Structures are given as structure tokens and as C-alpha cells.
């Protein structure tokens, strides 16, 4: 019991919300492209580039806010290239996304080497992180106040974006058109809605959020840039997007699950002394299990039919002498 108490308390929830925020931001960005019918595997690269240029911008200007803007701008450029190739030139989404991911990874490493003469990570150089926001009324709320106060600003942005997106898809014209373009492009076309324009818009909004996610990683979550610091969060977001279909609420649930297992694994490492290698695999195992459980129920008709046919084939005698 004592062990459990040390594992599960308000601090764990705080840790969960902290680890959830970056993946939530990038996944919310991906929600736009998913809803618009684009399989955006380039989230990882946009996030990484955002993280890198947020650091550069901060070091150069001295202001983390300008750093955030730089990170967003960099991610936007990558998102624009993605849209140009995928929407205008109709290139394969997966190939383009992977290529841009590799580009982002290589570019950040070589720029790091060129500018700072080092590999590995950047810190110091006058790098300052985003300020922590303490809600003034949180003190009076006891443990709940503890949970909702004391994060860097982009954490709040991430969680507040969820209800905003719900309303966006439900009530705004752009949100509606993004859904229509993703679900039934020919319907959009028949009504004179430009598919290309909607997909560009969705890709660029996605770039903004992926950039914010990156900036949060290097200026909020930590105050440094490390090689490939997005460490698969973009891919995790893609996985969550597939089973949530881009719906903000389901997506939040998926991100929280990931954040929770991430936070729990960190806890277990310090509290229980389990090998860190096993611990590091926990969030991914949880995500895999969740993905499997969810997709098994809503597995596509094709798979269902295949299984049904196989079942039938096995239940029928092969020589055809059954029946009577």
C-alpha cells in the first residue's frame, strides 16, 4: 500500500499533465490534417524543427517568446513544403512525410554543429525558458490548485485548445469544410469548395501547432535542445490520430493515456528501482495495447469478412461430402 501511495498522488497527475502537453499539442495539429484526409506522418519533423529554431530564436533575441515564434515559423515552412508536395504535386504522403522527418533530423544536427560546434545538446548560451504561470486563485483550491497551477504557458494552450477544436469542428464553416474535404471530397467539389485550399489551410494550421509543440519541448518542458529530442512523440501522435480519427476528445484521451504511462514509468524508475530500459518501454507498450484493443473492435469490414470466410472454410469439410 505504501508503495502505491508513493506512486499515485497529486504529483503523479501533475507529471502526467506535463508529459501529455507536448504530444497533445502536436496531435491536435495533426487533427487538422487527419480530418482533411491527409495522412501526415511529418509531424515528428515539424516538431523537431520547431524545437530547434525556438532555441535559436531565444538565444539570438534573448526572449523565449520570440523563440516560440521562430519555432512556429520554421515548422510552418516545413508544413508548407509538405502541403506543396502532397496537395499540389500529389506525391505520396508517407514518402514525403518520412523524407521531411529525415531532413529535419539531419538539418538540426548539422546546424547545431555549424553554429555551436557541438553535437548532442544545446543549453546555456543565454538560453531562457518560458516562465511558469502560477494561477493566483489556485492556492485556495487545495490539491486541485496544485494540479492546475504552475505550468509553462504552452501546457495551458494545449489543454485549452481541446474545447476550442471541438467547437471549431462543430460550429465553424472552416471546420465543417475540413471534415467534408476529408470524408467526401467529391461532395466538396460539387459544392464549389476548393479541396486544395482547404488542405493547404489544414496543413498550415497543423504546422503552427506542431511548431508550438516543438517550442514547448525545448523552452517549456525542458530548457535545452537535444538531438532528436521529439523522440517519437510525432509518431505516437500519428498512432493516436489513426484510432481517434482526429476527434479532439478521443485524441485527448489517447494523449493522456500516453502521458500517464510516461509519468508512471518515470515514477516507477525512481520509486521501485525497476530497470530503466524496461521502464522506458512502458508507454509504448501501453499505447500498443490500447491501439490493438481499440482497432480490434472497430476493425475494418475487410478483416472481418476475411476472418468470417476463414472460419467458414475451416468449419466446412474440405471434400464437400458434408450437408446430409
Amino acid at each position, binding site marked *: 500500500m505504501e508503495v502505491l501511495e508513493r506512486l499515485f498522488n497529486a504529483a503523479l497527475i501533475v507529471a502526467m499533465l506535463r508529459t501529455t502537453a507536448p504530444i497533445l499539442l502536436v496531435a491536435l495539429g495533426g487533427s487538422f490534417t487527419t480530418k482533411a484526409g491527409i495522412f501526415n506522418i511529418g509531424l515528428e519533423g515539424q516538431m523537431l524543427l520547431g524545437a530547434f529554431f525556438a532555441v535559436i530564436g531565444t538565444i539570438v533575441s534573448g526572449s523565449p517568446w520570440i523563440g516560440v515564434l521562430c519555432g512556429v515559423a520554421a515548422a510552418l515552412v516545413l508544413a508548407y513544403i509538405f502541403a506543396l508536395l502532397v496537395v499540389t504535386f500529389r506525391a505520396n504522403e508517407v514518402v514525403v512525410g518520412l523524407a521531411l522527418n529525415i531532413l529535419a533530423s539531419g538539418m538540426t544536427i548539422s546546424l547545431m554543429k555549424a553554429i555551436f560546434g557541438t553535437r548532442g545538446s544545446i543549453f546555456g548560451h543565454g538560453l531562457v525558458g518560458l516562465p511558469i504561470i502560477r494561477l493566483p486563485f489556485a492556492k485556495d483550491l487545495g490539491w486541485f490548485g496544485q494540479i492546475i497551477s504552475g505550468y509553462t504557458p504552452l501546457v495551458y494552450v494545449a489543454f485549452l485548445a481541446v474545447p476550442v477544436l471541438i*467547437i471549431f469542428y*462543430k*460550429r*465553424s*464553416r472552416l471546420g*465543417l469544410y475540413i*471534415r*467534408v474535404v476529408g*470524408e*467526401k471530397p*467529391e*461532395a466538396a467539389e*460539387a*459544392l*464549389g*469548395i476548393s479541396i486544395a485550399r482547404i488542405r493547404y489551410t489544414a496543413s498550415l494550421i497543423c504546422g503552427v501547432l506542431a511548431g508550438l509543440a516543438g517550442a514547448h519541448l525545448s523552452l517549456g518542458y525542458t530548457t535545452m535542445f537535444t538531438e532528436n529530442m521529439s523522440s517519437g512523440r510525432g509518431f505516437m501522435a500519428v498512432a493516436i490520430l489513426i484510432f481517434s480519427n482526429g476527434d479532439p476528445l478521443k485524441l485527448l484521451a489517447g494523449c493522456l493515456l500516453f502521458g500517464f504511462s510516461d509519468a508512471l514509468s518515470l515514477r516507477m524508475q525512481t520509486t521501485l528501482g525497476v530497470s530503466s530500459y524496461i521502464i522506458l518501454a512502458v508507454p509504448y507498450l501501453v499505447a500498443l495495447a490500447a491501439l490493438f484493443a481499440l482497432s480490434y473492435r472497430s476493425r475494418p469490414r475487410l478483416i472481418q469478412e476475411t476472418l468470417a470466410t476463414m472460419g*467458414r*472454410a475451416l*468449419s*466446412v*469439410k474440405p471434400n*464437400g*461430402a*458434408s*450437408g*446430409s
Partner: protein
Amino acid sequence: MSLAIELKSITKRFGSFVANEDVSLAVERGRIHAIIGENGAGKTTLMNVLFGLLQPDEGEIFIDGEKKVLPNPAAAIAAGIGMVHQHFKLVPSLTVAENVFLGMEIRKGGLIDHKAQIARTAELSQKFGLRVDPGERVGLLSVGIEQRIEILKVLARGARTIILDEPTAVLTPQESRELFQTLRGFVAQGMTVLFISHHLEEVMEVSDTVTVLRHGKEVATRPTAELTKADLVQMMVGRAVSFDRRPRGPVTGKPVLEVSDLWARDERGLQALKGVSFQVRAGEIVGIAGVAGNGQTELAEVLSGLRPASHGTIMLAGQAIQNRSARAIRHAGVAHVPGDRLVRGVDRGASVAQNILMGRQDQSPWSRFGVIDRTYLNEQTKRLISRFDIRTRSPETPVKSLSGGNIQKVVLAREFSGDAGFLLVDQPTRGVDIGATEAIHSEIMRQREAGKAILLISVQLDELIALADRILVMFAGRIMGDLPGEGVSEEAIGLLMAGVESAPAEVA
């Protein structure tokens, strides 16, 4: 009477192909005006010109007496014309109201006002007698209701003239009847309906005036009341076509297919076949009649190996074939013309030659040592193309670019060119135009003369009466009656189809 629409000398060419040649059309306001013609006669082209989707090379368009140029559908919509396409363009995850107002959302303070949209949709639905639930998601609705939504979309945009392209192709008979009622309601309110069809009964039933197109030219425009079905056929096809009973000799062959006490379940696990027994003899066409959904589909699937039988036997020339694989059943001597040709009949993306080959690609002389003999395939395909009169540019043309009738001829060419003794023919002329229907009927008769045993499943009674030696009527998974094809009336079949038991049914 004022004219709602007047097209004067419209000509539309695609390259060297003339789709419409000097076509004039005058449509009076408050009428249902049918435009009929065979596939490829230029009906849809003409309507696309009127809806601004295509620009005519020559000719003028007048709407409500005013000359108009319609560069795009938006201009046509502004002029009060609405079009309901054959293929619906609805978004499944949106509600009925959202679909109706898509592209012209009602907004309040920048956000979509769902309440107002639902109220407006309900109002339109009320006014025009198109029953829908505005708040329901479209993905859950039937095709008939989807069509109502498409019509509501057009009405919400203020259309006074509505063009419907083959509106009944996807509807059940009940839904069609409801649609006609709605259309009559429209004209009673002073609107005008343009109705494209190649279905004669419908045109006779619903239209006030009819224009016949043939090979891109206008053949005639007359009040429907002055015409008979035979007149329409003659004008559409350009020659007299008869769907009377085909003359034939008596059936003398031995039984080829013997089905006894066959049971099977449908998709939902319910009993779809409840002890079906019958025989088909060599040189005999046995027809299966019935309202769709009374077990005919399941019967065809069980006979072709696509669905397991839970009980009973199927003997083909003395050999049990029930519950064997589709492939084994084909090898045993069953040819199958599936009811849904685009799903099970052909691979749409593949060429005519590939579709002719399909199913025997591993048999000599079509292939040797695992390699397809292209010369042989090409020769055979060319032979079958001319023998079955398949209108295709070449054997390499993808099947999806052929018309429905020609796709069906590809299926028949493949299935009838094997050496199967039993032919399972399901809805051979569904969606096929008159000329092709006649050709397909002749081909089925030719197979009968060649001594094949044929099971013909059809929802079209006139087809069964024209072709079948005996007609079995299915109702709720059972055979209700076994009627001779000679001298049978549609009424007699219809009663059995409705499940009304006549004199003790004789089941062979």
C-alpha cells in the same frame, strides 16, 4: 402555357464524337417532362449543358423566356435550375440538415446555426412532402432517403426546375412510387421536373411529355398520353423490338441440377432458404421470381459456392457440389453470371481480355506452364467481342469505360464460352438498355437450344415470361409455386410473390 426551359439547336462534340446534334427541347412550366433514350443517346450530356457543367458548341439556352449563358453550375442554380445526379454526393457523418445547407450554411455570430438549419430543413421537408429527420446522420439512412436529401439540397437553393438523372436506378419499387408522388406534388406547386430515364414503365407512369433521343439526336417530343410503350421502344431503338415470349420446342433433356431440401442462413444469421427443392433439366430455362430479399440472392450464392448451405444437397450431373468452394463448383461445370456485375462479375480496372480470361488463367489452352498464352487470349477475346457484339474500342480497353450493357456482355461472353452444363444467371439485364437486353435474351435462348440447363433469377417478370420454361416463385425462403412459362399471367406470379398460397403448389 409558358416555357420554363427552351434549348435551341444544341450541339455538343467531344473530339470527333457528337454527343448532341442540333437538339431542341421545349419544356412547359408545371409539367413532368421525361427525356428517354438508350445509354449513350446523349441524355446526360444534354442535361449537363443545361446545368452549366458542359458548354454547348452551338445553340442557345432560354430559361423562363430569357436567353442565358451558363458557364458553370452556380449560374444554372442562380437561374433556378437544380440537378439531382445519379450518384449522390452526401457526407455520411453530417446530419441531414448539415448536408442540405453545406456550402450555404446559416450562420449566427460567425458560427453555424444548427438549430436554424434544422428548422429550415424541416420546413422544406414539410412543404414539399419529402419526409426526413433533419437531425439524423446521413450515414445511417437508406438510398431512398438519401435521394430525398439531394432533392432538398436543390430545393434549398431555390430551384424552380429540377433535373433528375436516372432517379429510380437505385430505388426499390416502393421508393420509386413515393418519388413519383413527390414529383407530382412539385408540379402541382408550379415547379417543373425534367426526368431522365431509360425505364419505359416509369416514363409512361409519371411523365406528361416525353422527348426521345437517339444517337445524340432528338427523335420526337410528344404528350405521353398519345404514346404506347411499343412506340417508345421503336423510337428509342430505331426498330421494332419485341419482348414477347420466345418460341421454343418442348423440354426433353435429363435433369442436370437437382436441389433437394436446401437450407441456408443470410448475413444476419437468419434462415434465408427454408428447404428449397427443384430440378433444372438440360435445354430448360427455369426462372426464379420473387420480390428482392426473399432468398433469391442466397440461393444464387449457395449454388455458386459463395455461401454455405446449412442442410440439403445440390447434385450436378450426379455429383454433390454443396459447400464446395466456388472454384471447385466452377470446375464441376457451373457457370455463374452474378447479380451484381460490378462487384462479382468483373474487375473494373482490368481490360476486356483479362476479364474474359479470369477464372481459367491456369487452364490449357489459356496458359501453359504457368504462362498465359497471349496470342490465344487475344484471338479468343476478339472472337467473343464480335460473337457477343461487345462495343469496345479494343480487347485492352478497361472494362470500367464500357456501358453497363456491354460490361454485362463481357460477363456473359466469359461465362457462356466455357463448357459448363449448368448456367446460373442472376439479373442478367439489370440496368441494361433495351437493345442490349434483347441481345442478352437471344443469347440465353441460344444457350437453351445448345442443351444447357439454365437457372434464371430475375426481378423482372416480363423477362421471366419471355424466357422461362417454368417459373418458380420464391417467398420468405420457400418456393411458393411452380408455374409453366407458357401462358402464365403476371398476376398469377404476383400473387405468389406476395405470399398468397394458390392451389397446392407442385414442386418438382
